[in-house]
C-alpha cells in the first residue's frame, strides 16, 4: 500500500501540487489523468523521492524508492550503451541478478545495439523491460502508451494486467483515456495540482 497524505509541492510561489490525499492498494491499477501541467509528473517524482515535498508518503516497505519501478515519459540513455547493458545497469542497481536476458526480451528488442539508436517506442519498451526485470513491488508508468505501436500497446496492457495479478501497485498516467479504462481499477483526475474527481471502474463509461 502507498498512502499519500496532505502532499503539497511548490516551485517558488508556483503551487504545483495542493494538499493531495490518495491511497494506492496492492493488486490495483490506478490512472492519473490531467491536462499538461496538471502536476502528474511532479506527483510521480514526489512519490519516487526525486523531489522534496510537504506532507507524507508512506509505504509498507521503506524506502519506497528501492522497490519502485519508474518509467519516465522520456527515458534517458547513455550514448554508447547497448540495450542489454542498460538492463544490466538497472538490475545491478537493485541487486537483482539477471539471467537469460534474451528469453526475457518480451518486446523482441535488438539488445546488442546501442540503446540511443532505438526509436522512441523502442526506448520506452527497453526502459519498461528493465524495470520489470528489477522485480519491483510498485510501478509508476508516466505516459507508457505514448509513442508505442499498437501491438506493443496490447502487450503493455497484458503486462499491466499481469502485474495486478501479482499483487503489485501500478500507477499510470496517460492522455489516452481508452487505454486507462482498459487497464485501471480507479482513475484520479488532476487539475492545476488538485485531485478534482475519483472515478471507479464501473463509472468509467460516464466520463
Amino acid at each position: 500500500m502507498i498512502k499519500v497524505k496532505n502532499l503539497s509541492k511548490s516551485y517558488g510561489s508556483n503551487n504545483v501540487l495542493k494538499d493531495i490525499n490518495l491511497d494506492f492498494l496492492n493488486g490495483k491499477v490506478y490512472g492519473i489523468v490531467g491536462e499538461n501541467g496538471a502536476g502528474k509528473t511532479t506527483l510521480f517524482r514526489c512519490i519516487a523521492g526525486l523531489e522534496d515535498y510537504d506532507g507524507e508518503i508512506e509505504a509498507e516497505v521503506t524506502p519506497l524508492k528501492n522497490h519502485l519501478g519508474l518509467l519516465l515519459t522520456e527515458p534517458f540513455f547513455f550514448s554508447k550503451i547497448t540495450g542489454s547493458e542498460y538492463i544490466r545497469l538497472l538490475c545491478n542497481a537493485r541487486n537483482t541478478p539477471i539471467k537469460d536476458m534474451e528469453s526475457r526480451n518480451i518486446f523482441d528488442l535488438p539488445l546488442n545495439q546501442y540503446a540511443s539508436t532505438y526509436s522512441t517506442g523502442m526506448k520506452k519498451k527497453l526502459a519498461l523491460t528493465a524495470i520489470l526485470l528489477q522485480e519491483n513491488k510498485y510501478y509508476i508508468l508516466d505516459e507508457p502508451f505514448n509513442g508505442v505501436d499498437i501491438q506493443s500497446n496490447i502487450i503493455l496492457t497484458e503486462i499491466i494486467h499481469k502485474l495486478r495479478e501479482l499483487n503489485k501497485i501500478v500507477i499510470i498516467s496517460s492522455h489516452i483515456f481508452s487505454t486507462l479504462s482498459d487497464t485501471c481499477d480507479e482513475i484520479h483526475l488532476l487539475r492545476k495540482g488538485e485531485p478534482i474527481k475519483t472515478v471507479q471502474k464501473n463509472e468509467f463509461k460516464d466520463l
Partner: protein
Amino acid sequence: MKDYFLLQYTMTNRKLADWGINPFVAYVLMVVGFIFLSEYLYSVTEFAGYVVLVVALSVLTNTSETQRNNFLLIVFGNSKYRKIRIIENVCISLPFSILLFYHNAFIESIALLTVAVVLAGLSFKANLNFAIPTPFYKKPFEFTVGFRNTFYLLPLAYALTVIALSVGNFNLGIFSMLLVVFISLTYYAKPENEYFVWSYAVKSPQFIFNKIKTGTVYTTFLALPILIAMVMFYPLKADEIVLFTLISLSFLWVTILAKYAAYPNQMGLPEAVLIAMCVYYPPLLIAVIPYFYYKSIKKLNILLK
C-alpha cells in the same frame, strides 16, 4: 553561423555566472591557468608534449558527439555545419598547438591542427548496428561508455610502454601507466542523469564505495599489462612503481568524489582548483579526499535517502 558562436559565448558566460564568477575574470584566469599549468607540466616531465596531445585529443572528441552534431546538421545544413565543426575544432586545438609550437614540437603542433580538421569531418556515430566490444559489460556504465569513447587511446599508452622498455626509459614507462589512469579519470568527467543515481537501492556511502571499487578494479585492469611489464623489467624499482600506482589511483578516487561533490552539476571551478592543487602538491589529497567525500554524501543523500 555567427549567431551560433554568439550563442555559445552567451551560454558560456551564463555558466560562469552560475558558478558565481565574473566571465571576464574567468577568461583571464583560464588563460593564466593554462599557461601556468602547461609550464608546470613541462618543468616536471619530459613527456609533457604527449600529455598535451592526449588532453587536446580528448577535448576534441567531445565535439564529435553524434546527437549534438545531428542537431547542428539539421539546423545549419551541410555546408555551414562543416564550417562550424572546423572552426570549433581549430579554436579548441589552437592553444594546445601554440603550446607545442612554443616548445619546438613543430610536427606535433601541425599534426594536432590537421587531426582537429579531420575530426571535424567525423561524427562518432552511435547508430551502428555494431557495438564495440568491451570487457566491462558486466558493470555498466562509466567504463563501458568510456572505453568505447577512448579505446583508440589505450593502444597508444601500451605502445609507449613498449618503447619505454625497449629504450630502457623508466620514466616513460611510468608516464604510460599514468596515461591509462588519466584516460580512466575522463570517464568520470560528466554527471549522469539523476535517474541512474536514484535507481540504486543503497545508501550514499555504499554508492560511493561501489563507484570507487569499480573504478579502482577496472583502472587497475587496464594498467595491469604496464604494471607487470614494468615490475618485470625494473624489479628493483617495484616499490616506486607501486607508489606511483597508488598515487595515481588516489587521483581517480578524488575525481570520482569531486564528480559527486558537484552533483547534479558538472564539476566546476572549485573542484578543478582543488584537484589542480593536489596535482601540484599530492599530500593535499589527505585533506581533499575527505572533503569531497563529505560533500558527495551530502549531495547524494538527496536522491539516496
